[in-house]
Structure formats: C-alpha cells, structure tokens
C-alpha cells in the first residue's frame, strides 16, 4: 500500500478543471486509488462524482492511497496535479 498526504494548491480547490484532471489521471491507471480528507472515509479517486462531493478546498490536506503495480508512480502523478495552483491541459 502506497500512501501520500499532500496539500491542495489549486486556488479553486479540487473542482472543475483540477478535479477533471485528477480523475482523468487516476482513471488511466489499472489499479484502485482513493482520496480522503483527514478523518473522513476514502473515496474512489476515479469518480468525478466522488471527488466533487469530497469538496477538497485550497490549502486542505488530502491523503492518496493506492495498492499494486505502479502505485508510487500513480500517486506521484496525482500529487503533481494537486500541487499546481492553476493546472492546465489534459
């Protein structure tokens, strides 16, 4: 199990563009990956519905977890999306 806790740098939080990029990145991987806010149940990082409902705001910390081949690489990619103030492109 790989785990990574990071701060949301996107000014609008994990919404709209950052959320779509985050979910697209997660969905490209064949392994399960979750995202959670502190003290809350983890949700499916491949679900745009779950990620929008999570409502991770600018400055909040979220924890990513994945298990299996490529888990570390996947979490690094997702962390890069979350670490951008204004993510661009797909």
């Amino acid at each position, binding site marked *: 199990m790989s785990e990574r806790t990071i701060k949301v740098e996107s000014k609008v939080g994990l*919404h*709209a563009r950052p959320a779509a990029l985050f979910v697209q990145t997660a969905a490209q991987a064949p392994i399960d990956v979750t995202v959670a806010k502190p003290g809350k149940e983890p949700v499916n990082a491949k679900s745009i*519905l779950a990620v929008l409902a999570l409502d991770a705001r600018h400055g909040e910390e979220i924890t990513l977890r994945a298990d299996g081949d490529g888990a570390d690489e996947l979490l690094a990619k997702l962390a890069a999306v979350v670490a951008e103030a204004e993510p661009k492109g797909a």
Partner: protein
Amino acid sequence: MTRVLSPVPGRVVGLAGVPDPVFAQAMVGPGTAVDPARGPGAAAAPVAGTIVKLHPHAYVVVDAEGHGVLVHLGIDTVQLKGAGFELLAAEGDRVEAGQPVVAWDPAAIEAGGRSPVCAVVALDAGADALSGVREDGDVERGAELFAWS
C-alpha cells in the same frame, strides 16, 4: 433511465458551446449546455434526488439510480465567491426535478464580463450512456436535455 431536465430556460448550445475547454472537451463528463435567458431567475434541479454538493455557482444532484448530474452556472463564476447567487435549498436536501436550487441573474453575470452559459454534465457516465442529447434550439426550464441509461 434518468431524464435530465434543463435547469434554466434559454438556448441549447451543447458542451462544445461552453467557452471553457474543461467542459467543451467533456473532461468533466458528457452532457450539454444552455445559454440562459437573461434576467433574474432560478436554476432548478435537473433530476429528482439529493443535493450532494451545493456551491453558489454549481451543484450536484444524485438521483435514486446513483446518477449524479452537475449544473455549473456560468464560467469562472467560482471567482464571484457567491456574489449574485442566492441559495434556495441546502446541501443534503431532497429535491424534485425542476425545483429551484439557486437564484441568480445571468444578465448580471454577463455584465461582469463572464459567460453565464450553464453546463449540465452527467458525472462518471460513458459518452454512450446518454441518448437524445439536445445540442441546439430553445428550451424552457424543465425541458428534457438528455436521457441517461
């Protein structure tokens, strides 16, 4: 089968008509968009269900089948931090399709230099899950925009 209704009256422009590539390229999901009639009004729930997320400028309603529909009121309207939007319901509320959720004035959004185009997006849906997607023409609030199987 979920029938997704227009949250606002106006002219259907399709997702491609949304001046934001995140929506226009269906990155958030498949669906359509409506250029709303100008003037004060209220944006409605696109389906009957529970409001799982409610921001002044955007909301998500999940129906009994677990289908979540995002309504995004205008582009870059998150920057308004709620100014010009009045919540008529609360997060966690159960709503009927067509029930008013947020009062706003598309003309005021436009006067502020932003597009008031409303994206209506099927969350976690494959593109082939939608049928009868409206891409043009005038709609009343509550008119069907697409069906989601």
